[in-house]
C-alpha cells in the first residue's frame, strides 16, 4: 500500500516496524542474507530459488515435453507477472500469473491431445515465466517482494507435485466431474498452505502473533485466492477442450477482476496517503512539533502489533494516531510547543473532543473518532463510560512518550521517559501498553 519500496524487509530500528499500510522507511539492510533478522523468509526464498534452479537445469538437460505448450504458458505467466498488483497491506499479487501457473500444473490434456510435462518442467516453466515478467520491474527499480514471488512458485510446485503423478497413474485425459472435484480440492489445500506460509512471514515481519497474522492473511486473501483458484481450474479444464485458444480467451475475465483489485487497493492507498498528508496540517500550522503525528502513528503501530491487534484495527488505529491532534485546529492559537501532554487536563480533553467532532463529521470513521475522543482519559476511564478503547490507551502512551522525548532523544532519555510512564501505570497509563512500548523500543 505504499509507494514502491525497493525492499520492505528489515525494520531498521526502534519504531520503524512501521504501519503496514504505511509509506514508512523500510530500509534495505546492508547485511548479508545469512545474518538477516528474518530467517524464515530467507529460508523460503532460498529453498524455492534452489528448487527452481535445479528444475531448470534438469529440464534443460532432459528436454522440454510439448515445448509450444510450455512456451505459451510461460508467456502468459510472464505477462501476468509483469502486470502484478499490490494489494492493501503491501501484499504483492499476480493473479493472472498464478492462475496460469495453476492451470499449467493441472493441465491433463490439450485440445484432446495428452500432454506429458513433469513436475520439474512445471516448476521450470513457472520460474522462468516469473523471472521474465519480473525483469522489466527490476530494470526500472521496482524489485518484487521476493517472498511473495517465492510463494507463487511454491504453490505451482506443490500443486504439480500432487497432481502430475495422478495424471499418469489414473490416466486422466479429459475433463470430468471427478477431475474437476480433485482439482478444486487440491487448489483449496494449496490455498490454505499458502495462507499459512504468508501468515508465518507476516508474523515474523511485524512481530505480531501468529494467530492474529493467520486471521489477517485469511481475510486478506479470501477474495483474491478464490478468484485465482477458480480461474486456474477453469483454464485447465477449458484448455482440454479448446486447446491453447482457451488460455487466451479465459484469462480475459481474470484481467477484469485484476482491474477491480487494483482499483480497490489504489483507493485504499490514496485514502491513507490523504490522511497521512493532512495530518501534517497541524505541524505546518505550528500546533505540534514536526513529525509528531507520524512518529506517534509508527509507535502506536509497533505497540499494537506487539499486543496482537488485527489488521483492520491497526488501520483504524493508524488513522486515529495520525489525526489525534487535529482538534488543535479549532484553537485560535497554538499551544506553546504543541506538547499536549503538558497542557492542562481540561485543555487536553477539549482538544480531544474537538478533534473527535471533526472526524465524526466524515460519517465514516466513527471508531476512529471514538479513539480520538477518549485518548486522554485515565486508565479507569472518565465518568461511567468505563475503560477507554485499547486504541485510545495506546495513543495516550505513544503521544506522551513522543511529547516527552521529542524528535531526537537518545537511548538514555528514552529509557528515562519509559520509566516515568511506568510510574503512572497505576492510574494513568495501561501497564500492558507501557510494557509493549518498552519491548518495541528494545528492538
Amino acid at each position: 500500500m505504499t509507494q514502491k519500496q525497493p525492499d520492505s524487509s528489515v525494520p531498521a530500528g526502534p519504531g520503524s516496524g512501521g504501519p503496514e499500510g504505511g509509506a514508512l522507511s523500510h530500509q534495505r539492510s546492508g547485511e548479508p542474507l545469512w545474518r538477516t533478522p528474518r530467517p524464515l523468509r530467507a529460508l523460503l526464498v532460498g529453498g524455492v530459488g534452489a528448487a527452481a534452479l535445479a528444475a531448470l537445469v534438469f529440464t534443460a538437460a532432459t528436454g522440454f515435453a510439448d515445448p509450444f505448450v510450455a512456451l505459451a504458458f510461460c508467456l502468459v505467466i510472464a505477462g501476468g507477472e509483469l502486470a502484478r498488483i499490490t494489494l492493501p497491506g503491501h501484499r504483492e499479487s499476480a493473479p493472472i500469473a498464478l492462475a496460469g501457473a495453476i492451470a499449467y500444473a493441472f493441465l491433463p490434456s490439450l485440445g484432446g491431445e495428452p500432454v506429458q510435462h513433469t513436475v520439474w518442467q512445471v516448476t521450470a516453466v513457472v520460474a522462468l515465466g516469473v523471472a521474465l515478467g519480473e525483469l522489466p520491474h527490476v530494470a526500472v527499480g521496482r524489485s518484487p517482494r521476493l517472498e511473495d514471488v517465492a510463494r507463487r512458485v511454491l504453490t505451482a510446485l506443490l500443486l504439480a507435485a500432487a497432481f502430475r503423478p495422478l495424471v499418469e497413474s489414473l490416466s486422466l485425459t479429459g475433463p470430468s466431474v471427478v477431475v474437476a472435484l480433485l482439482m478444486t480440492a487440491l487448489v483449496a489445500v494449496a490455498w490454505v498452505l499458502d495462507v499459512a506460509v504468508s501468515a508465518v512471514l507476516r508474523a515474523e515481519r511485524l512481530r505480531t502473533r501468529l494467530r492474529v497474522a493467520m486471521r489477517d492473511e485469511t481475510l486478506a486473501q479470501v477474495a483474491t485466492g478464490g478468484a485465482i483458484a477458480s480461474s486456474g481450474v477453469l483454464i485447465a479444464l477449458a484448455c482440454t477442450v479448446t486447446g491453447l485458444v482457451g488460455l487466451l480467451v479465459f484469462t480475459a475475465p481474470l484481467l477484469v477482476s485484476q482491474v477491480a483489485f487494483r482499483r480497490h487497493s489504489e483507493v485504499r492507498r490514496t485514502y491513507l496517503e490523504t490522511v497521512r498528508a493532512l495530518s501534517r496540517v497541524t505541524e505546518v500550522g505550528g500546533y505540534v512539533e514536526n513529525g509528531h503525528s507520524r512518529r506517534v502513528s509508527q509507535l502506536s503501530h509497533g505497540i499494537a502489533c506487539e499486543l496482537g491487534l488485527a489488521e483492520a484495527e491497526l488501520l483504524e488505529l493508524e488513522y486515529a494516531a495520525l489525526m489525534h491532534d487535529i482538534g488543535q485546529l479549532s484553537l485560535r492559537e497554538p499551544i506553546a510547543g504543541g506538547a499536549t501532554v503538558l497542557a492542562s487536563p481540561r485543555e487536553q480533553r477539549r482538544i480531544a473532543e474537538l478533534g473527535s467532532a471533526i472526524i465524526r463529521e466524515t460519517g465514516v470513521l466513527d471508531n476512529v473518532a471514538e479513539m480520538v475522543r477518549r485518548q486522554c482519559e485515565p486508565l479507569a476511564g472518565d465518568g461511567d463510560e468505563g475503560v477507554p478503547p485499547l486504541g485510545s490507551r495506546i495513543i495516550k502512551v505513544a503521544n506522551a512518550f513522543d511529547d516527552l522525548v521529542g524528535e531526537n532523544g537518545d537511548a538514555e532519555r528514552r529509557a528515562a521517559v519509559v520509566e516515568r510512564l511506568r510510574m503512572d501505570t497505576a492510574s494513568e497509563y495501561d501497564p500492558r501498553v507501557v510494557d509493549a512500548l518498552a519491548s518495541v523500543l528494545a528492538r
Partner: protein
Amino acid sequence: MRALPWGARVYVGIIVVSAVAIVLIGPYTGIDLGTLVLIAVLFVVAESISTHVVVDVKEAGISPSSAVALAAVVLVGPVGAAVVGFSSCLAVRRQGPVKRAFNGAQFALAAYTAGHVYLLLGGTVGVPGQSDFPGIVLPYVAAVLTHTLLNSVLIGVLMWCLDVTRPTGPGPVRWRPLIVLEVASVGYQMLGLAIAAIWGAVGIIAPLLVLIPLFIARWVFGQQTAEARAHEATLATLCQAVETKDYYTRGHCMRVAEGSAMIAAELGMPAERVQKIRYAGMLHDIGKLGVPTKVLQKNGKLTDDEYAAIKLHPTRGYEIVREISFLDEALAGIRHHHERLDGRGYPMGLLGMEIPESARIISVADVFDCLTSTRSYRRAWSVEAAIAELRRCAGSQFDPRMVEALVRAVSREGWQTPDIAEPPGGRYCATEDPEPDGPSAPVPAPSDPERTVPVAESTSAGAVTGGQDR
C-alpha cells in the same frame, strides 16, 4: 410502478408481448430439456445473487449473470436462450410485476437476437467440441456484442419513455468510461463460452467455477466504491476543518472544487483528470493553515512581512499534500494557483502558458467564488458582475479559455452561491478602509461593480484576489 406514462406502457407492452410470442412459438426441437432447465435455474440464481451482493455500484452495466445467458445461446440456441432470459423475471428481488416482466422480456429479446446473430455467423448449437475451436470464437463475440448493445438500447428507450434521462444538453459526451465499461463487460461475458465448453464434461461445476470470480470482482467493485466515498467524505471534512479559522471562507474549498471540476469537464478532460482537479481545488488553500490567524483576519493594511507570510501559502499547501501521489499533476495546481498570466503572480512569477493547466483552472474558480461570496469588508457580487470582472482580467490574470469554460458551465448548470448573509455580530463593512491588499494595489470596495470596473485597469482582479483570497 404507479402512473406509467402512456408511451412507456405501450413500449413495455410491445416488448413483453413479443418476448412471450417468441417463447411460445418455439421451435423447441433439438433442445435438451434438462440442460435448458438447469441453465434457467442457474440464471435465476445468478440474477438474484447479483442484486443482493451488489447494492449500489455505478457500473450497473456489468452483470455476471449475462455470461450465463450467453452460454445458453451456445448450448440451447436462440429460443432456449430466450426462455433462459425470460426466466430472470423469477429472480428473488424487490421489484414490481411490470418491471419484472419488462426485465425478463428484454433479456429474452436480447438473447434471442444474439442467438440468431451467432447462428448467422456460423456458430453451432450444442456443447462445442474440440473441432469447433477456434472457429466458434468469432460468432460468439458477435453474439456478445449484440446482446450487450440490444440490452442497453432496450433499457435506454424505456428510460427515454419514462423521461428519466433528459438529454444532458451540449455537454461533451464522455466516451471513455463507457468504452471501459463495455470492454469490461465483454471480458466477463467471454466466460459464457467457457461454461459452454466444459458443460458437456463437468456440467453444473462449470458455471460455479465461472461465477465465483465474477461475484468476487463485483464485490470488490462495491467495496471500492464505498471506500472512495469514505475518502471523499474525509477529505472534504478535513478541508472544512481547516477553514473554520475564518467564518467568511466557509464552504470556499468545496465551491472551488466544484467550479474547477466544472471548468475541467467543460474543457472535455477525461473523468479521472476532472476528479484530480476537483480534489486539488478542494485542497488549494490548505497551506493557509501556516499563516497566523491574526494575519488572515486582519482588517487593516498588511505590512510587507504579513503579505510575505500570505504569499507562502501555496507553497506550504503543496508541501502538505505532495505525498498524495494520485494527485500528481494536479499538485502543481495547488502550488501555482496564484500565478498570473502576465507573470506578476506568486510564488514563482510564471508567465503565460508556463503556468500548469490545472493552476489556471483553479485560479479562475478561486477568484470567481471569492467575488460571489461575502467577505468581512464587502458584500457578495452578483454572478453576472463576477463574470464581467473575470472577462476583463482574462489575458492579463486568467487564461481566457478557462474563463469562457466557466461562463459556459455556469450558464448551463447555475452556480451555488454561499448563503452567508450576515455573520454573527454583523461585522462586515464596519471598517471604513476594508481592503487590506498587497503593497501596491489600490482597492475597490465594490458592492456595486459598475463603479469598480473603471477604477483600476490591470490590478482590479489582482486586488480582488490579492485581497479577498490572499
